[in-house]
């Protein structure tokens, strides 16, 4: 019986580790893009690498360089990055009972609370697999993301003029690609369209970066008052 359980765990363990490695490699392609686009925005290689090591949440990193690249102030860039990073707090809430970590382990686990580690952990049924999936995916993504960032950042220096290469268009494409899987959420298409309309309408009126922040807040407010989203948020119909 114990042998059987050990064998099952060995199989489950192998599968979790293989999945984690696969996610890490896939995320590496985002990392290369981030490295290239960050240095073409004007951040140095050291600043780009520091963002990937210390911030370690891709959406926020792209948001910061998107706002800075369009002439926004560092303050509005940081605010956009933090708003986008606020979802990680919700992931942390979700993961806390499963991880059950204190002290230094909690401080370390916190850094790994990102889209991929959370998604891989919540898709496992038993807590032991879930914990392994969180740590393995988090560490695999951390390693791949940082190596890939450095490769992209150093490679970009050799590439040449960002506008000639169309890298400014690549940043918009990266945001659309990050948005894409989220459009299936309830109310998401409406929120996205409102955000686009508000951001573009305010661009001639406010300094760069600020329209993005206002658009984010207005669109979320509209989304919450949308009937199906409101019902779900109030715990009513699914």
């Amino acid at each position, binding site marked *: 019986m114990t042998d059987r359980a050990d064998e099952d765990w060995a199989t489950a363990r192998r599968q979790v580790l293989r999945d984690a490695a696969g996610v890490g490699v896939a995320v590496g392609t985002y990392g290369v893009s981030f490295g290239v686009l960050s240095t073409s925005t004007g951040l140095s290689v050291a*600043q780009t690498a520091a963002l990937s090591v210390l911030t370690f949440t891709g959406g926020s990193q792209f948001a910061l360089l998107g706002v800075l690249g369009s002439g926004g102030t*560092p303050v509005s860039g940081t605010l956009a*990055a933090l708003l986008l990073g606020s979802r990680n707090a919700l992931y942390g*809430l979700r993961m806390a*009972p499963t991880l059950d970590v204190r002290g230094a382990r909690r401080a370390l686990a916190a850094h790994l609370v990102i889209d991929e580690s959370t998604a891989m952990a919540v898709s496992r049924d038993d807590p032991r697999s879930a914990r392994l999936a969180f740590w393995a995916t988090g560490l695999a993504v951390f390693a791949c993301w940082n190596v890939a960032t450095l490769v992209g950042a150093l490679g970009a220096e050799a590439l040449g003029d960002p506008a000639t290469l169309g890298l400014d268009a690549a940043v918009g494409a990266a945001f659309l690609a990050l948005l894409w899987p989220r459009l299936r959420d309830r109310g*998401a298409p409406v929120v996205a369209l409102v955000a686009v309309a508000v951001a573009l309408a305010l661009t001639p009126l406010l300094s760069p970066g600020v329209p993005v922040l206002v658009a*984010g807040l207005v*669109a979320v407010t509209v989304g919450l008052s949308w009937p199906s989203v409101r019902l779900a948020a109030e715990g009513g119909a699914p």
Partner: protein
Amino acid sequence: MTPGTAWVAVLATSAGCYLLKLAGLSVPERALDSPRVRAVGALIPVALLAALAAVQTFASGRGLAVDARAAGLAFAFVALLARLPFLVVVVGAAAVAAALRSLA
């Protein structure tokens, strides 16, 4: 933007993003876990990423412009519909914009 200001933005973003992650692991589960908070949490990334994509593509300083970047975004849209991988979407968008500019 001086290198110093950029460093301040990099470090402030890093510190803030880390504290958000740590807060999630540290606060009592029921403190924030209402359906409304979850709905806001799901909608914020949607709104910000959509706004960022639009501004990145159509803003030109304080004006709006439809140029080679829009063609790049259109390519990205089609590539995502066709379920192509991230790198193809991003590199393809850059290539389309670059090709249009070299023709102009």
